[in-house]
């Protein structure tokens, strides 16, 4: 799977540019390219539903972030104990990756999943629900309760944005 690793390296380079650059608008555009690379990776991993959803959600996320950085703040210099803090952070991240490597040896090998429950979905999905898109049948028929929770989260997000942006009419 050499093309998957090439796209992952492209995403890592884009994320590094987004983290290290000083201009805020360039950082937001770099995050946009990371999302675009992720959509291509979903297409290579044979998940067309996710590729469509990730592409359009990425466009909307970049629109919202550009709206927030129009009034941008000037870059400022780093101050006091910078070397010590960076050193501690790198040590922590190295320990984290080390533990992660030991945990990932217990996962099944890449390319042969243990499909215990999904075997039932794949073989009986068309007969029981009548839908040819198996991902839709899982989202809307076998696990429709999770979709109800997701609709609730979206509603709460709309109410939250409205409550934060409202001018409270409290006269002093």
């Amino acid at each position, binding site marked *: 799977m050499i093309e998957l690793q090439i796209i992952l390296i492209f995403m890592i380079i884009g994320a590094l540019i987004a983290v290290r650059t000083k201009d805020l608008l360039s950082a937001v555009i770099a995050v946009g390219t990371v999302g675009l690379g992720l959509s291509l990776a979903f297409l290579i991993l044979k998940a067309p539903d996710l590729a469509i959803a990730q592409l*359009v959600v990425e*466009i909307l996320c970049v629109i919202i972030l550009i709206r927030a950085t129009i009034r941008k703040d000037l870059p400022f210099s780093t101050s006091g104990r910078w070397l010590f803090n960076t050193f501690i952070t790198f040590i922590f991240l190295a320990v984290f990756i080390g533990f992660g490597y030991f945990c990932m040896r217990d996962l099944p090998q890449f390319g042969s999943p243990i499909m215990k429950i999904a075997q039932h979905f794949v073989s009986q999905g068309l007969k029981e629900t009548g839908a040819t*898109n198996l*991902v839709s049948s899982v989202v809307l*028929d076998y696990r429709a309760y999770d979709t*109800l929770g997701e609709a609730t989260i979206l509603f709460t997000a*709309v109410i939250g944005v*409205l409550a934060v942006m*409202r001018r409270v009419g409290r006269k002093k």
Partner: protein
Amino acid sequence: MKEQEKGMTIIVKTITRLTVGLILLFGIYIVAHGHVSPGGGFAGGVIVALSFIHIMLAFGKEEAFRKINQNVASFFESLGAILFITLAILGIGSGYFFVNFMSKGKPFELFSSGFMPLANLAIAFKVGSGLFIIVIILVMFKISKEGDNR
């Protein structure tokens, strides 16, 4: 944000007039064929919201408000939630919560597989109008001391 209130240049406005209807139609197609081909309610709802946001970005927010009012967007969001809950509760009559009670027709047809097309439609209403409302609120926020008119 003076630039957004007057809209963008004439090239952007012409291209927007030509393509925004096609984007809306494509979004409705992805929602309606959610159980046959890849897509579904989430991606289709976001595409429908993006078509209205496209009008707002190119022409300014007053023009977008003439197409979709604030009350219309709020009505559609509540309609999507109520439709989804109604489909769930109607299943109690023939089994348990959320059972698929409509008939499952032949595969590969548009009216098959129970209530899945209706559930896709409800999800698309909710996601589309919710995201449109969020972007409208973020754009209308002014930094001066005057009040927000919502």
